[in-house]
């Protein structure tokens, strides 16, 4: 399992590649958390497009990042899920806290809108 990162406007995009199980989850978790801390990211978008295998460890990874981002006042979003990965994530009800988008760009658009909304609201007050 390999993760590559992209950062834009405090938003971290983590693209996973390979097999995500209990063994690889530990390493993935650590790499993502380090990036969040080092670059002071506020929001996280998972890109599952290149994940060839995933078991329920994947749910734990998303859940754990949700808890972390909530503390930082940010959001977690999920994108690029195959129907198979979707089945596993959906089972757990995780989408109610980390919503799903078709691809990274859709997720990015939504989170940027929310950020702007917040800025506007704060500006009005």
């Amino acid at each position: 399992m390999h993760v590559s990162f992209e950062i834009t406007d405090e938003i971290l995009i983590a693209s996973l590649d390979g097999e995500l199980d209990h063994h690889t989850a530990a390493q993935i978790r650590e790499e993502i958390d380090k990036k969040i801390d080092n670059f002071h990211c506020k929001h996280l978008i998972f890109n599952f497009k290149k994940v060839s295998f995933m078991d329920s460890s994947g749910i734990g990874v998303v859940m754990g990042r949700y808890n972390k981002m909530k503390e930082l006042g940010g959001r977690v979003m999920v994108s690029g899920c195959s129907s198979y990965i979707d089945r596993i994530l959906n089972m757990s009800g995780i989408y109610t806290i980390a919503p799903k988008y078709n691809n990274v760009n859709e997720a990015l658009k939504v989170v940027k809108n929310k950020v702007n909304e917040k800025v506007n609201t704060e500006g009005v007050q």
Partner: protein
Amino acid sequence: MLQSKVDDKSFDNKMKLKFLNKSQNEGFARISVAAFVATLDPTLEELTEIRTAVSEAVSNCIIHAYKEDEKGIIQVECWTDEDRNVIISVTDEGVGIENIEKAKEPLFTSKSDEERSGMGFTVMESFMDRLEVESVKGEGTRVTMIKKLDIVYEL
């Protein structure tokens, strides 16, 4: 080790796998089972479901049964028959499960601090046709999963 209730003689093909309780063996275990089941020409979806269910059962041995102690031994057995039934048994000699009904509930986990979701048994139940869990406290656990593969029509 808990004894299997499956009668070898009524099956067509059989394999047994034993390996050390190391998390790097998770991938090896599910690939082995998938390669064994592949001789029945399953669909890609069926094979993915089986790989995932095996991964759940094996990681439960590593995380829960042996609490990451790498000296434990995990046993995976697999039987197939002419009617395309696949039976998979994953057995450990670990701590055992006190309350099996509770353990099987969605979102129940005894290790939420380690980012376990409590969805392992739910995934196994939803990807396989049947799931049976036997456990004796202090002796170990055996998870048996059954799936009937779809019939392939020859062209």
